[in-house]
């Protein structure tokens, strides 16, 4: 005989669609996803009205020419959009989705009512995490698709060009773009893990999101200090740019693989700790 109320099943509590709807109705979700659509349009407008004076932007080294190539076709435009957002914007968006999800419930006081339903704590975290990751992926794909669409409409369907290798035919270029998006998604798991952990540890949603972004920036800064030597390999952001290797022919996947290992390990570490902590702590908010 079950001790629970009629119709109650622990595995049926907080169904995925319920959590998706909880998040879908929030304004920050609309804003984040909307901006993913807006950004390629803004970039496009900037290119259209930006004028032609081309001051030498050699910052990116051999890959700096991604900027020059941005208007050479839809694929390159999408690549450029990803290139400019990978460093910060996507970090913030992922941190927002993953860092806000538990902390905001705690902040509103609704977390304790979910737990009193009862939604088992591990299940609550699991569902929240899956949905937050799904929204993050949606944002990434929205950005890519919009940029590809807008870029193709404006600049046409051309091979993917880069200065590090031969032009890549459009068909294969799409696959490369997908591979790049896939790798970005994997590296963003690191920041997703950190933001989620902070979200569990604090009741302040802003603290979780901002904290994750800050720590990520700190890691990026440390990564610039070459004096740290091989210690840098252990920074979670060290391999963030490895996706550029996917543009060369043949693709350089060594750093991509290492980056994936790093991201997966960090994410697992953060999430494990988040689950460990949340399933044991006293929820006081």
């Amino acid at each position: 005989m079950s001790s629970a109320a009629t119709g109650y099943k622990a595995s049926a509590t907080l169904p995925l669609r319920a959590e998706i709807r909880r998040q879908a109705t929030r304004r920050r979700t609309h804003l984040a996803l909307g901006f993913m659509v807006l950004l390629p349009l803004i970039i496009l407008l900037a290119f259209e009205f930006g004028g032609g004076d081309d001051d030498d932007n050699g910052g990116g080294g051999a890959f700096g020419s991604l900027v020059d190539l941005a208007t050479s076709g839809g694929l390159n435009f999408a690549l450029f959009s990803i290139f400019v957002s990978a460093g910060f914007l996507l970090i913030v968006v992922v941190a927002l989705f993953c860092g806000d999800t538990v902390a905001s419930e705690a902040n509103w006081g609704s977390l304790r009512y979910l737990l009193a339903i009862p939604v088992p704590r591990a299940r609550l975290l699991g569902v929240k995490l899956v949905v937050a990751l799904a929204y993050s992926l949606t944002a990434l794909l929205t950005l890519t698709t919009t940029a590809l669409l807008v870029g193709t409409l404006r600049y046409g369907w051309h091979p993917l060009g880069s200065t590090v290798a031969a032009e890549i035919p459009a068909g294969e270029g799409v696959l490369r773009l997908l591979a790049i998006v896939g790798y970005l998604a994997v590296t963003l798991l690191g920041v997703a893990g950190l933001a989620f952990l902070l979200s569990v540890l604090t009741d302040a949603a802003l603290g979780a999101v901002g904290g994750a972004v800050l720590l990520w920036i700190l890691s990026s800064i440390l990564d610039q200090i070459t004096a740290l030597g091989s210690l840098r390999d252990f920074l979670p952001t060290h391999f963030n740019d490895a996706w550029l290797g996917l543009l060369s022919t043949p693709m350089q996947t060594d750093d991509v693989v290492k980056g994936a290992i790093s991201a997966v390990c960090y994410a697992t570490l953060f999430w494990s700790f988040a689950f460990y902590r949340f399933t044991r702590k006293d929820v006081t908010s």
Partner: protein
Amino acid sequence: MRALKLRRSVPRPTRRRVIAGTLILVLVAALVTWAVLPERRSWTASDQRVTVLSGPSGTDPVTLDTRFYLPKDRDGKVPAVLLAHGFGGTKNSVSDDAESLADRGYAVLTWTARGFGNSGDQIHLDSPDYEVKDAQRLLDWLAARPEIRKDTTGDPRVGVVGGSYGGALALLLAGQDPRVDAIVPLITWNDLGTAFFPQSAGVADPGVFKKSWAGLFFGNASAPESSRTGSLLPPQAEAATGKGDPACGRFAADVCAAYLNMATTGTPDDSTTELLRRSSPATVLDKIKAPTLLIQGAVDTLFPLSEADANARGIAKTGTPVRVAWFTGGHDGGEGPQTDQDRTKFLTAQWLDHYVKGEGEKPPTSFTYSRVAGFSALDRGLVTNGYSDPAYPGLGGTGRTEVGVSGPAQPIANPPNGNPGGLSSLPGVGGQVSSLLGRFAGDLPGQHATFDSSPVTEAIEVVGAPTVRLRAASPTGTATVFVKLFDVDPNGTATLSGGLIAPVRLTNLPPDIAAAVPITVTLPAMVRRIDTGHTVRVVVAASDQAFLTPADPTVYTVAVEPAVTLPTVVGSPIANPQVVWRWVLLGVLGAIILGLVVVLVARRRRDAPPVEEFADTPLVVRELRKAYDDGFVAVERVDFRVERGQVVGLLGPNGAGKTTTLRVLMGLTMPTSGDALVFGRPLVPGAPILSRVGALVEGPGFLPHLSGYENLRAYWQATGRPIEEARFEEALDIAGLGDSVHRRTKNYSHGMRQRLAIAQAMLGLPELLVLDEPTDGLDPPQIAEMRRVLRRYATDGRAVLVSSHLLAEVEQTCTHAVVVNKGRIVASGLVDDIVGESPSVQLSVSDVTAATTVLEGMNVRSVQADGASDLIVDMNGTPREEVVASLVRAGIGVDRVVPRRRLEDAFLALVGDNSRGSGDR
């Protein structure tokens, strides 16, 4: 007070904190120790100045600055390696290599060659009479050491390793002294004459003087001490202290004279030719019996791959084992990418281990090379892929592809004195990415002719020296031109592989191009993949800044025959050790999945066994105690029960422990000891029995962006229970929000939220309802309504637990009450019992003293003054009217007679005097 504050500011040392702190301390200590501890070396090194007898007569003493590395851990005698440095270096420039060889169990002898650093005498340019003889004497020195393994007396077991200047020494020494057992010459020359006067056309005329390299070679400009392949410049200090002619620095007179001769005229005279020849391994190749591993760089405009090719062919002719390896580096390209460094290091160790130490399989003589695959996205360095082919194919490749180039015969102008001149390489800069790609190569308009192919239809793996057939005409009958081969991508970017060009000096040319005969020009060997869609461009230029060109302006006419021959090798890729990371990634993912499965299986929760005795009791709290991490005890000990049909009030001042108790009842907080049973099942976080409890604790919690109605829906959706169980209508009735239920909750008043929260708690009509201060924020009619609702709710076998700090609240709502204070139960029972009349009354009288006297004369238990005009009297059964009558009779005015109730007594006695909460204890 101060001591107390101080103690509070330091966190209490709980067990968890102590463990965590200790762990961190141990970790930090371990890291610091690891960082501070000196590296344990597996060898000892001793510096000595060794004086050897050398020179043509073998009797001239020269003092050499040496360092001898000896492995510490050696059983018996060890083989030796003689490690020579590059031009301009000292024994210190090879210390890294020496240390790694010593780590592998070799005794390593490094020394500063004569004319450099702290060694004596002058530079004789690897002369067999000087530098080579010095090295022979060092072999003698090694043979005299007791630690060194010997083949026979006076013949040490020794390999010779060196780069550039040291590489040529290795070859020359092996040709001059049969005691050498194996050699590994890196990036070195075969013939200094062809290296400095390259001639790429198959004609006998002397080549074009490579002035920039020669200048660097000779010059005494300042430069830091170099690494293995680095700069060839002697340090300024030595140059400055050099004796004799300031034009010659530390060069010996004959070497100096030879340089001045060739730099002045651009063609070597006989004695110069003789001197360059003397210093060239080409003369001794047939005498080399020591197995030879030749490592040459593909990005080397000083000693290109053709030098190693000549060495390999010459040595192999006599049957001596030779192995050739190319890497993407050299005098221009530096040490090359890490993968190349790893490969050449491995090949060297393998070669020495077999032929010197006598360990390991015989190394194959397969040919290995590497090709640039692109940039590393992370450190902006180059990435190369390694390939191997079973045998060394020479510069002609294992196959060949012809590409047709076209273009009319074009006139090109030779600038006077070579100025302005084209640019193809930057000698001496070394290791620059740009020079590896040769993208900055520039040809000047009017000075070059271009011949382009159509896009290639299939990628060509060029490995070796391409050839073109050139026709040239010159009004003077002679022409000096430079032939280059570019790989042009579809965007028009032309790349000159390694910055390598083919200088050609032709004589006896006709003035008219129509009469010119085609001459085969062999371009520098390269490793490059020309991708599909790229074109091949042959450029013939009249000038190049790296070479000495004729001083007089002339206009040549050049044409290139259509067929360009590209040698190809399709090598098998060498497994990249980085591939192992893919398996690591798979392993990590596998481990994570496994760990997840284990955790899920281990955590599968079984319902805790019910306590049958209480299976029908909505709530039993037994000896509940909760102490927080910081040591604060919120609940000392609480026991009470809630039976079906009861509305139980949990009464106590703020901080009495009510909320903590309720938190435990919601599974939010774990009790330190004791338990709470709902229908006999212990309450733990996530216990399914919680689904039969509805709760409002610590105020409402709603999603602010949803309306009240949507919030209830979202809540019910989260329970996963069927919608018809929810009883929305009843709940909404109770909330009584009317149309406001469709407004966003963020705009609700406190009371509205409170009512919505109570409605939420009642969704699904749970059998136990737990409400924390339910009337908070409600106005009086609503409070009255709520009381009715709660009393009604407790019928049908349901039960309600209400917490409040207001006595009246509990008194009017509840059937039973539990009074808590400071974490303990002070009273409990039926409210009627508790609230029932107490034996005492409160009297307000006009004269307290007189009244007390009167009262003490009556049959009462006690009389207590309470304020200026009040008395508390325990009547002991005496009727109130009798007391009042007695007082009035005594002339004392009675203003008020208030009967007191037990609950109030208890509550005030325990709580009233001290309204501070238990939190202030």
